């Protein structure tokens, strides 16, 4: 069975671990560099990106996370995780990087503006995905190697893929629909790998 890590410094780790378990995959909580050993893929969950970034610095995880991203194994960041994977978050805070995007943190405003909506995601069969956006970021600039998988109707980019790196501004882990988790797990399989 595949071993998929979930960065467990802070945030909705249990929601991702639960969704992975429902996909038949054992989730490994990652709090220390040694926890990354032997993982086939890694999820950076939602949470507070400033908190997660600081804790990653304090416990020596930033370089090991960069090495993991560079190894080409699948990595998926949701919301705060997307911010951490960005090249630029428009704010002085520790980042892992790897994804050639600039994000706008809290692009949609404060919590009263948080929302859910039906979203068409490229590569996801079976109709729109019910996507939950919580004080969510948006991608405001994507490099040439970045595929845009989803935009909101009025334009903002909210899902991207660059090689084995997936980034979503929304929380696929907050519902029962496992299609984005399955898409991510499929990214590790040679027959359905990057175009």
């Amino acid at each position, binding site marked *: 069975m595949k071993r998929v890590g979930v960065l467990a*410094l*802070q*945030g*909705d780790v249990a929601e991702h671990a639960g969704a992975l378990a429902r996909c038949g995959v054992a989730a490994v909580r990652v*709090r220390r560099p040694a926890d990354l050993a032997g993982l086939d893929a890694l999820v950076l969950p939602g949470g*507070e990106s*400033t*908190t997660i970034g600081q804790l990653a610095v304090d416990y020596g995880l930033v370089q090991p996370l960069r090495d993991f991203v560079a190894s080409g194994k699948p990595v998926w960041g949701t919301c705060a995780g997307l911010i951490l994977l960005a090249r630029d978050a428009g704010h002085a805070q520790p980042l892992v990087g790897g994804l050639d995007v600039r994000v706008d943190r809290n692009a949609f405003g404060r919590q*009263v503006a948080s*929302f859910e909506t039906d979203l068409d995601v490229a590569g996801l069969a079976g109709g729109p995905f019910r996507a939950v956006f919580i004080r969510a970021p948006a991608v405001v600039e994507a490099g040439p190697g970045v595929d845009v998988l989803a935009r909101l109707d009025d334009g903002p980019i909210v899902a991207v893929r660059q090689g084995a790196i997936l980034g979503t501004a929304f929380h696929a882990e907050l519902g029962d629909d496992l299609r984005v988790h399955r898409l991510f797990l499929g990214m590790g399989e040679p027959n359905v790998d990057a175009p």
Partner: protein
Amino acid sequence: MDMTHDGPHDGGTAAVNGAGEHAGRETGTFRVKAGMAAMLKGGVIMDVTTAEQAKIAEDAGAVAVMALERVPADIRAQGGVARMADPDKVLEIMAAVTIPVMAKARIGHFVEAQVLQALGVDYIDESEVLTPADEAHHIDKTAFTVPFVCGCRDLGEALRRIGEGAAMIRTKGEAGTGDIVEAVRHARAVLGDIRRLASLRPDELPAAAKALGAPLALVHDVAATGRLPVVNFAAGGVATPADAALMMQLGVDGVFVGSGIFKSSDPARLAHAVVRAVTHFDDPAVLADVSRGLGEAMRGRAAAAIPAPERLAERGW
């Protein structure tokens, strides 16, 4: 759409944007409210009374701050009626940090809550730390787009608040004491009752719901899942990294620290230490490391020595 939790009731904030540039975006749903709390899990929420304190909290790694005019220890010492903070104070703190900002409304004071929602706070704490505005009724939290957290002493109280629309629960503890004993009592009561419910036969749940004074549907839900349907934090008396880790090991999802941080001799260092203690709550080597050299913790007051009329946890039902 789950109409038990959602919907435009407050006249000002439509739940669904039906047309225009934000067509189809549904705000204020239970999933959006409870999901916000899920993003705070494994984190520390700190009481702050100035923009400067809010920056210290953010720089230490707090996941959110609670904007207040007085911390509970000062409310306790100074007496008088404790109300919602001055809007200028709340806005000053919102402008100082990028992390979420919470603020407290009095129990039952739905107009204070309307004001806080209009200011744009990210979460409202309907709190026993402030002087209650209503002795019988809590705020109808389903009528708001902004989510609410509420205190509890046991599972029945937690489920009554969730039934009213609370999207996050915390123990009451005994705020402003620096004494962890009441938070431990409340966390053990909630988590112990959940374990007991999960062991019951379905035909025993109605009687359990009656005994708890809790909505039957929520009792069924807890019995089936073995957990609350919302995030559950500890609050009320957390003063040290070890206190915070104790609550985490008992099974809560995160920790509020009220007076403990800014009533200590070195707030920045203590704030930093409590955040690390919550992340590594089950690693005694980390806990030992972060517990060193913190200076003096808040002096505190034994909760048991507080006369009944002054106990904040008794407020609300």
